[in-house]
């Protein structure tokens, strides 16, 4: 069996970040990826906040092929027949260093892989890891395409529902409430058309979140991100709601209906769909994390459950990058001691605890529970829409006082329930 210092399974952001740091240290690292190339199979909505991760990969951001920096934040609440939008634009977001970018993984991951390879990492694509080799409870390698490859440490960066962590015996079977499913289309538009439609100058970009009737009362929402010459349009829906809520729907039909909304049609008109993808998202928060280390193994990124549902957006890419880098740092420590046992590798957990990763996970540990409230996806968007519709309507008769219009739309019982949700909301 050929042996290497480190084997990383999965060339997503977690795996590539780990490989980059290890290779820079002169450590012999092999990355095994099943896709045709890094980024080929990786799905994200499309927004990366750079500030949290800048220090983890300090030298890459200047040249990184990111799409647009987000200066316009939009939220849209949708009812079956109306919608309420808010658009926030800030000069501050248009100042360097930009804090938030839209990304296309097919471009970004491939580029990051090239950087890791330049640093000395060995990348093998089009190969799936099929098993983990264990010896007396310790992980000592992997099996791919019938070949055994050994390593001091295997890093599972193979994404959500990690097969490697499962084979290593580290995953507790998932529960539907800990996962969501995401669908996304990338729709190409000429650059100038896109900039005119969205009111953008230069490389400025929009991030738009949608909640309400598009998920038909289910936990989740929609998103739209502008890239250089395309938009990423998609939605995320909780798996438990998909299974349990009647009448059942197929998610892709929800996306189709969303795309037919008059709010969306003119934005993507004439565009050419160039990518369609679907992916599972871990959303269990703190409670949904898997064990992070074992003898000869570390788990990083989505594989470990490092994705956070922050309201209607998902944050996972920063956690993937940071946890990948910290896994690499833990390996560097373990090498200094020449001991790859769980007790030495446990410094990985320590690094994570001291970083924004675990701090954010603790801060937002109640989010999944609070958000698991169908009123956010049904009642509130409808309430806002109806209220504004009444306020803006001028009928033939005399117009009601504004306070009366509000009272008509909001009963006492509803205001009480709203107060309760608001209190719950204070926890997140």
């Amino acid at each position, binding site marked *: 069996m*050929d042996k290497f210092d480190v084997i990383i399974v999965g060339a997503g952001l977690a795996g590539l970040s780990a490989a980059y740091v290890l290779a820079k240290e002169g450590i012999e690292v*092999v990355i*095994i990826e099943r896709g*045709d*190339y890094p980024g080929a199979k990786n799905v994200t909505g499309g927004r990366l906040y750079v500030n949290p991760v800048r220090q983890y990969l300090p030298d890459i951001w200047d040249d990184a092929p990111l799409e647009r920096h987000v200066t316009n934040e939009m939220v849209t609440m949708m009812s079956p027949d109306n919608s309420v939008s808010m658009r926030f634009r800030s000069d501050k977001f248009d100042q360097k260093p930009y804090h938030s970018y839209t990304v296309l993984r097919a*471009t970004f991951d*491939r580029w990051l892989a090239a950087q890791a*390879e330049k640093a000395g990492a*060995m990348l*093998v694509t089009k*190969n799936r890891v099929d098993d983990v080799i264990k010896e007396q409870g310790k992980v000592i390698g992997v099996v*791919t*395409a019938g*070949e055994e*490859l050994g390593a001091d440490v295997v890093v599972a960066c193979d994404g959500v529902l990690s097969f490697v962590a499962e084979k290593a015996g580290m995953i507790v079977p998932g529960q539907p409430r800990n996962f969501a499913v995401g669908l996304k289309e990338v729709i190409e538009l000429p650059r100038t058309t896109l900039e005119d439609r969205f009111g953008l100058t230069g490389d400025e970009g929009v991030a738009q979140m949608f909640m309400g009737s598009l998920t038909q009362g289910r936990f989740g929402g929609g998103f739209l991100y502008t890239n250089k010459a395309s938009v990423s349009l998609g939605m995320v829906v909780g798996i438990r709601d998909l299974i349990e809520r009647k009448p059942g729907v197929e998610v892709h039909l929800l996306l189709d209906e969303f795309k037919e909304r008059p709010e969306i049609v003119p934005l993507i008109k004439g565009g*050419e769909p*160039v990518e369609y993808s679907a992916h599972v998202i871990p959303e269990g928060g703190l409670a949904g994390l898997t064990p992070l280390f074992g003898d000869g193994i570390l788990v990083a990124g989505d594989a470990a459950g490092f994705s956070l549902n922050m309201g209607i957006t998902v944050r996972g890419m920063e956690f993937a990058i940071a946890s990948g880098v910290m896994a690499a740092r833990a390996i560097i420590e373990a090498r200094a001691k020449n001991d790859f046992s769980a007790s030495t590798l446990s410094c990985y957990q320590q690094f994570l605890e001291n970083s924004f990763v675990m701090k954010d996970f603790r801060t937002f540990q109640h989010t999944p529970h609070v958000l698991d409230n169908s009123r956010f996806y049904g009642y509130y968007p409808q309430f806002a829409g109806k209220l504004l519709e009444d306020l803006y309507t001028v009928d033939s008769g005399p117009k009601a006082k504004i306070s009366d219009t509000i009272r008509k739309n909001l009963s006492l019982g509803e205001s009480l329930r709203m107060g309760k949700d608001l209190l719950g909301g204070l926890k997140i």
Partner: protein
Amino acid sequence: MNIYVCVKQTVDLQQVRIRKETREPVLDGVPLTIGNIDKNALEEGVRLRDKLGGKVIGVSAGSEELNDTIKEALAMGADEAIMIIAPELEGAESSTVAMALAKAIEKTGEIGIILLGEGSSDNYSGQVGPRIAEILDLPQITYVSSLEAEGNTVKAVRNLEDCFETVEAEMPVVVSVVSEINEPRIPAVTQILKAGRKPKQIYSPAELGVEIAGSQIKTISNLAPEQDRKRLLFQEGVGQDVKSLVAALESEGLLGR
């Protein structure tokens, strides 16, 4: 004895998309790979080496990215690589490429067989092999669907579509193969990992005395064929629809032929 296999770096055709509006292929940012039939040539080279001994040397001309792309050839079993690298060589016309490859091969030692695919995956001009043979003044056998070597002689079956022709030649010889000659191997992971460490020799065109003249060929258009769809929709209910579909197919002359 050296078995040279010429391979070309091209875009991975499986990843190429056609822009609907213009029917142009989108080539920007498409991953690069070595040509499909080049892989058959490589496989044949490796097979012959395993039988006859010697070395398989992958030879390629192209841009900087070749450093990466060539690893595929090394992973498939080539022992060494020779690369002629210059930005102008990417997409250069056959005469230039053939000259660069021939000069590089000539420079590096004793030639047994020079193998190529019958045409490249992208342009399919099929000229590079014959041109190399001409430049190096070697016999050539094209469109080979089966190849044997014994001592200093090769025996080849040429697939000429309407007939097969069996020919013999003395080495050194240039052979271009067709895709049915073999099934190229998918390299093992350990081979892929070892590929990065195999010897590579890089030349610039100047070092080989090759001048890259301005292009004599102008591409006038490069478009995907038009796909005219009939866009017939039958929605009267299955019973009626089947009849309508059959009638429509018949009226196009597609049934009952």
